[in-house]
């Protein structure tokens, strides 16, 4: 094996860059891509990396730490409060019932109760990294399933603290010796002292967040060096993680705590954008490491055992999750997304199994098996999600109303609206008010249900899929409106439609000028910036409040709109003059500068002298 940092980096990055786009292309999400990349370069396929994959994994767990820091940052107290019932109720129900079921199962298989209890607690964890990433990619974050998943995952992440605290107790009673040297200085201390240390560390993070980190960040910000702030952000995460490891706690939890504390500071967005890219890379690395560390030898030696274990665990978790969802009255298809999504064993299980191994709760062989089960379950999650989405949900989403749908399909619907959030629904309502029937595509099944009840013709599913477009009547329609909020989805959709349904007039909602350029570059002319009209309308009202006549202000607004639309088209080609590697933010600034310069040259209202009598005074003398 060729050693050296550069070679390793080369392998990892190449694997990621080859596999992830392929996986995304196939609609399987980036997580599976990373996992496959790991398997490919791992010891059982190409063999570029050997057992050191395990070490990489410890390193890459840092991605999980960063992810939890970010989750903490995004978790505003009010958000937390809104979800409190879900977090406490669903979270505790899921962990307790799953653990008990798994524990009972393992005890039936003649495991010692301590081993069974410890392992089942670890197996009850789901993968925050995989689930949140997948939900985000599929745009399901705001659905019932998304919110429920988030709640349960959050509860699990928090539950890791007491579980980690509980594990030594299980070990003490088996009378373990100080086998492996451990970094945790607290090991061997009496239980109450450990607990005190844990609480102390938590308190330290909270206090430091309030009274040390924020003033420290202010000082750093004053230097106006961007990279210094990035360094500070990394320092915060690493320092917290280190402190937590020192007292034997999960670094991820510490980071989460630090994130929550900093969520209310003015640096929240700054920290978020600084850490985000690191998190992405480290998480990717983490998944690659998981893929690479899967012990295929174990699978070859006793395939039935591993496979049946994996499926047993997944089945039990899914059933419990479905029950939990049902208890909390989630609709069937949302419940399926939720349950299947959380059915894998999460990355915390690696941490917990490692700890158990250290404490001799788990023997070597069993640790290997458990790690393998965890890794396999994580690997097949994206596949399960894929199958769920493509085959089970699709059937579910459309079967419900299939009787009705058959006759609606005969009706010609000239307009298709993709994305029925606030933006899309306003268009839909407007069209309906004018007697135009629109077919609606949306991937939030709850909303789909509601809209169907209101008599809209709605299809559940991802609008960027040609089969869905076809069943929505893209062949007969005349106009397709993409009202999706995510710019990338819009691009995707436009590309698909241009390729498969060139006869459709595409009308695109875009977020801002940058997005507009992207769509304009694709040859679409009907581009609608979502806030343009509204901000001009507000500006008109400002003029009125300042004493302008309403009609003059309205005309000024109309002129500005016309001018701004024209400027958009005019500046579109110049965008490519800039060297393409210009940093995005810089590009924005350049663009704004160009606009402002233009505004100075052509003020759209200053030359509007309509109906001004003063100007004609001089020429009217002869009358």
């Amino acid at each position, binding site marked *: 094996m060729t050693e050296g940092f550069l070679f390793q980096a080369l392998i990892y990055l190449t694997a990621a860059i080859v596999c992830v786009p392929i996986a995304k292309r196939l609609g399987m999400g980036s997580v599976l891509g990373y996992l496959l990349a790991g398997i490919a370069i791992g010891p059982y396929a190409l063999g570029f990396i050997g057992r050191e994959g395990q070490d990489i994994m410890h390193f890459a767990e840092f991605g999980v730490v960063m992810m939890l820091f970010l989750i903490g940052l995004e978790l505003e107290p009010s958000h937390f409060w809104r979800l409190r019932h879900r977090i406490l109720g669903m979270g505790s129900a899921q962990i307790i019932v799953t653990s008990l079921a798994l524990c009972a199962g393992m005890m039936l298989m003649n495991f010692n109760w301590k081993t069974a209890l410890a392992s089942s607690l670890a197996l009850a964890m789901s993968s925050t990294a995989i689930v949140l990433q997948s939900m985000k990619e599929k745009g399901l974050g705001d659905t019932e399933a998304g919110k429920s998943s988030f709640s349960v995952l959050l509860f699990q992440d928090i539950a890791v603290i007491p579980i980690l605290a509980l594990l030594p107790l299980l070990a003490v009673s088996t009378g373990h010796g100080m086998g492996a040297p451990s970094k945790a200085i607290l090991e061997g201390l009496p239980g109450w002292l450990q607990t005190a240390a844990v609480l102390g560390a938590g308190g330290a993070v909270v206090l430091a967040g309030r009274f040390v980190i924020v003033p420290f960040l202010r000082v750093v910000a004053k230097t106006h060096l961007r990279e210094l702030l990035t360094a500070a952000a990394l320092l915060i995460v690493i320092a917290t993680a280190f402190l937590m490891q020192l007292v034997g706690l999960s670094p991820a939890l510490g980071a989460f705590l630090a994130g929550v504390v900093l969520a209310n500071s003015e640096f929240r967005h700054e920290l978020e954008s600084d850490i985000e890219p690191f998190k992405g890379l480290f998480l990717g690395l983490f998944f690659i490491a998981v893929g690479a560390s899967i012990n295929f030898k174990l699978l070859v030696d006793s395939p039935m055992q591993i496979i049946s274990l994996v499926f047993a665990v997944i089945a039990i978790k899914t059933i419990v999750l479905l029950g939990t969802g049902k208890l909390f009255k989630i609709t069937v298809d949302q419940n399926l997304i939720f349950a299947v999504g959380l059915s894998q064993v999460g990355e915390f299980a690696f941490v917990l199994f490692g700890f158990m191994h250290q404490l001799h709760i788990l023997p070597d062989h069993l640790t290997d098996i458990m790690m393998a089960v965890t890794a396999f379950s994580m690997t097949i999650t994206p596949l399960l999600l894929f199958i769920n989405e493509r085959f089970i949900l699709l059937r579910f989403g459309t079967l419900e109303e299939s009787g009705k749908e058959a006759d609606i399909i005969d009706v010609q619907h000239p307009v298709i609206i993709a994305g029925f959030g606030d933006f899309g629904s306003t268009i839909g309502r407007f069209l309906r008010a004018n007697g135009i029937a629109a077919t609606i595509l949306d991937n939030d099944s709850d909303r789909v249900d509601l809209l169907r009840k209101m008599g809209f013709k709605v299809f559940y599913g991802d609008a960027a899929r040609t089969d869905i477009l076809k069943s929505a009547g893209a062949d007969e329609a005349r106009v397709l409106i993409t009202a999706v909020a995510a710019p990338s989805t819009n691009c995707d959709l436009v590309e698909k439609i241009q390729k498969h349904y060139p006869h459709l007039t595409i009308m695109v909602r875009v977020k801002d000028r940058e997005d507009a350029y992207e769509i304009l570059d694709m040859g679409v002319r009907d581009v609608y910036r979502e806030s343009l009209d509204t901000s001009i309308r507000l500006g008109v009202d400002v003029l009125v*409040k*300042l*004493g*302008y*006549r*309403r*009609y*003059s*202000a*309205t*005309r000024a607004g109309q002129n500005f709109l016309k001018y701004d639309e024209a400027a958009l088209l005019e500046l579109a080609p110049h965008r490519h003059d800039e060297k393409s590697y210009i940093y995005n933010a810089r590009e924005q600034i350049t663009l704004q500068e160009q606009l402002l310069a233009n505004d100075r040259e052509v003020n759209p209202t200053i030359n509007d002298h*309509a*109906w*001004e*009598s*003063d100007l*004609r*005074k001089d020429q*009217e*003398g*002869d*009358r």
Partner: protein
Amino acid sequence: MNHFRSTLANDENDMSTPAGIIPQEGEGTREGAHFHAKRVLILFAHPRFEKSRVNRALISTLPASDTLTLHDLYELYPDYNIDVETEKQLLLAHDILIWHHPFYMYSAPAIMKQWLDLVLEYGWAHGAGGDFLKDKTAFNVITTGGTREAYRSDGFNRFTIREFLCPFEQTARLCKMTYLPPFTVQGTYRLTDGELSRHAADYAFLLQQLGADAYSREEMEQFAFLNDWIEAKKRTQGP
């Protein structure tokens, strides 16, 4: 200028006009009052009111009265989307209707035509069953750049003001309303401040006389312009 009614909801600036409500049926006709008060509605249309010295002067000296309503069309309907129902109610609540506007291309600004076309519906204002405006009074108040002499058959504009106003006159007739001669402020480019304030005072006087029902229609119709009637009236009343 917070002394007459306006249909606008805010009075945050002097370009628009203060708040007020439509006078109710019967208001101003108190039992025992020695005159029958007429309710006057000014339909005002100027797309650039803020730049019009003359019209600002006319509007700012409107007399204080509960029975006078100023209805500023461009301020209310900057998108030309006239609320017909509101306008009809407004018309029903008044006795005298004034089309007050500058004289653009020998006619009224666009929103005034929009108003005529939308509000004076067949079956309501005219035609079968269109009796709702019957016996009300209407006339124009206009400001022109050209002088009175320019509006003569031998003048620059070749026709008289009254001839140019034929569409309004016939519209009023169609709606079974009485049409009075116009009140005009002409030669606006050359008006001195003194002349302007005299015109404004005349307009205020006219509105007072109308509101107090202190006029005779037949008398007014003898003049080509209400300006002349005012002059005659003032002369007979004495200083």
